[in-house]
């Protein structure tokens, strides 16, 4: 009897927490919203200027025809991929601790994918002709593969976010207060898609979520491999490499899990979700991240060694500029700050604290962005005839667009969680019902995390 009362009190608290961003976002919400919105607006101004004047305002020239936009494209789509995969893999392996973080991971996957895909358009010289990709595509072009892969993956990400959301939307539909307006009622009624929680509905939902989790893995791998192939299908030294597909995939996963850690930590703090997300979650995520980081390190080493060893003049010159030439400071910053330090912070017992793990995630995210610049720029500026390297400029337009895109991720998530619950309510309840022991353990870890 007493236990039942406590259970229901827990359930009410959980419901309140899941919907907290909707009804009580906190005093920080609007100021932060304005700051992030201003950054996005600045990016829009920059892009408008670029449309009027041409791509040179983003620092491009013939000796550096690819640069920061292409790096952003890979980086933002990469983190999206990580978000989707974390939640898919954790679902498939039935990791129970996943339940409170899947919603945020999936939301992050969607928002960052939209931002990443925007760069596919931003980097074009003639964005208004993008429809030609549909009416006269050339099947042999990696860019056409890219366009197909990214749009398919976008649809899949939307479905993957939406399916587990249905019961939660039904929950919202049934609890709308008297103050709710017509629009809200219609929105939640449509979004709930007639969910009543019948056993048949539950079964088919579980099946669909499982199927999507299976489907999204090859899809996500495809997207990032194809993105890598756009580079490696050229004969440029530094790009023309057989490991580029898997190399990009692992890099995407590594940075994606890292960003999940950062996003979860930020929203946990902002919306006081500590009772549901504890140190245990961060430790588990950080371990996954560390494994991926180690694999990425291995790929990096193997790529550089193969390129340098046979001393083909062109390949070796790329390795040389990375290890000891003009790009060396950035490369070693990445190696230390983007790989070794995050790995150490994630694995060392002494740093098993939320703030260190978040720092590790943050370093990995920024480090991997830097790595994408290092993947893009040296080969794009390398001389194919003669020995004069191209020059790169960093302009305010490129910086504004990059900052704006970065700001768009938290902004998009803040908006998203104004409409959908931040915690996967239904999933958490189901997982709780499935196995009490682990949830008790989770709670214990959670308490530890708060302390």
């Amino acid at each position, binding site marked *: 009897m007493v236990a039942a009362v406590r259970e229901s009190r827990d359930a009410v608290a959980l419901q309140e927490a899941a919907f907290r961003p909707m009804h009580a976002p906190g005093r920080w919400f609007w100021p932060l919203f304005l700051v992030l919105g201003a950054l996005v607006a600045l990016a829009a101004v920059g892009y408008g200027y670029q449309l009027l004047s041409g*791509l040179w305002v983003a620092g491009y020239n013939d000796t550096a025809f690819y640069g920061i936009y292409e790096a952003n494209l890979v980086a933002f789509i990469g983190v999206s991929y990580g978000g989707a995969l974390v939640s898919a893999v954790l679902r498939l392996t039935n990791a129970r601790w996943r339940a409170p973080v899947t919603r945020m991971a999936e939301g992050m996957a969607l928002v960052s994918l939209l931002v990443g895909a925007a760069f596919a358009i931003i980097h074009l010289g003639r964005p208004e002709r993008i429809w030609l990709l549909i009416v006269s595509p*050339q099947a042999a*072009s990696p*860019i056409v593969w890219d*366009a197909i892969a990214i749009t398919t993956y976008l649809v899949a990400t939307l479905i993957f976010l939406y399916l587990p959301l249905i019961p939660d939307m039904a929950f919202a539909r049934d609890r709308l207060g008297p103050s709710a307006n017509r629009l809200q009622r219609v929105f939640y009624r449509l979004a709930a898609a007639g969910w009543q929680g019948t056993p048949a509905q539950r079964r088919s939902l579980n099946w669909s979520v499982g199927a999507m989790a299976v489907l999204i893995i090859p899809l996500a791998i495809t997207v990032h491999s194809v993105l890598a192939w756009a580079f490696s299908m*050229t*004969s*440029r030294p530094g790009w023309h490499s057989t490991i580029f597909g898997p190399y990009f995939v692992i890099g995407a996963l590594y940075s994606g899990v890292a960003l999940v850690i950062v996003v979860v930590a930020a929203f946990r703090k902002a919306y006081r979700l500590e009772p549901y997300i504890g140190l245990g979650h961060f430790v588990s995520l950080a371990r996954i991240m560390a494994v991926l980081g180690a694999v990425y390190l291995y790929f990096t080493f193997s790529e550089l060694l193969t390129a340098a060893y046979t001393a083909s003049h062109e390949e070796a010159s790329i390795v040389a500029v990375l290890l000891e030439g003009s790009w060396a400071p950035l490369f070693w910053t990445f190696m230390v700050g983007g790989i070794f330090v995050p790995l150490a912070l994630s694995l060392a017992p002494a740093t098993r604290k939320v703030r260190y793990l978040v720092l590790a995630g943050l370093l990995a995210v920024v480090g991997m962005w830097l790595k994408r610049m290092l993947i893009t720029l040296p080969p794009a500026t390398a001389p194919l*005839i003669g*020995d004069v390297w191209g020059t790169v400029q960093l302009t305010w337009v490129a910086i504004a667009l990059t900052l704006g895109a970065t700001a768009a991720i938290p902004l998009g998530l803040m908006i998203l969680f104004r409409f959908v619950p931040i915690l996967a309510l239904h999933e958490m309840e189901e997982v709780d019902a499935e196995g009490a022991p682990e949830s008790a353990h989770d709670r214990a870890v959670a308490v530890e995390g708060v302390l």
Partner: protein
Amino acid sequence: MTVPPDRVDLVELPQAEDPARRMSRRQALLALAAAGSALAAGPLLAPLVQVHGESDPADPTHAGETPLPPRRWAMVIDLRRCDGCKKCTEACQAKHYLPPEQEWIKVYTVRDRTGVEVNIPRLCMHCEDAPCVRVCPVTATFVDRDGLVLVDQDKCIGCRLCMAACPYEARYFNWTEPKVKPPLPTKATPEYPSPQQRGTVGKCVLCVHNIKYGELPYCLEACTMDAIYVGDLDADVATNGTETVRLSTFLSENNAIRLKEELNTKPRVWYIPGHGEDLGW
């Protein structure tokens, strides 16, 4: 003019004895075609000569002509003669109204592995298996009937993947509105892409707008060293405006090479080394 015994590659031109013929170099390809006829490729080339014999040179549209015969255009650059003066670049830029940073023919002065300094004019190789054509997502880069690689700037979306794919750095992008424009408003075509369009790629068109009609490429016309030859692989002749050669013999006698042969792009541009330079960089 009789062919010197040590120049088996030279072709005797029917009307090539006038030393002042450099004045009429624009006629050279006509002569080339005529030489071709004399050389057994005859029927193939005859229509070109006829067409230009009959058509009104003042009619720039070439309307009402019989279709031109198919060609396999090629170019040969004699590195023994190139002194790196860049007159070719200047002429190309002036006549195609290009900004200084777009060097459709660019003279690289490189030191090879043996330490010899060599000038290499690089233009678009008009690769038979062109990577740039393969990667273009919207078929804006295409191969014309005669094997020339051209860009339709009305179609190009500006993705620049072709720049990444070209192994010869032959492609340029219009990062800004073209500052130089033709004095008269002209309609740009893939064959004569002037003025260039902002946000699209441009590159050497091998002056197809000239050679098709029996005139010479601008770079060739401007070359004071007679280092540049243009010709037709099928008719097996090429000319530098001064002398006309049997292309296959000229290439094999002089150990002509193509750049980055190992990539199997099958360039239509050959180079004749001659200073003993090692071009396998």
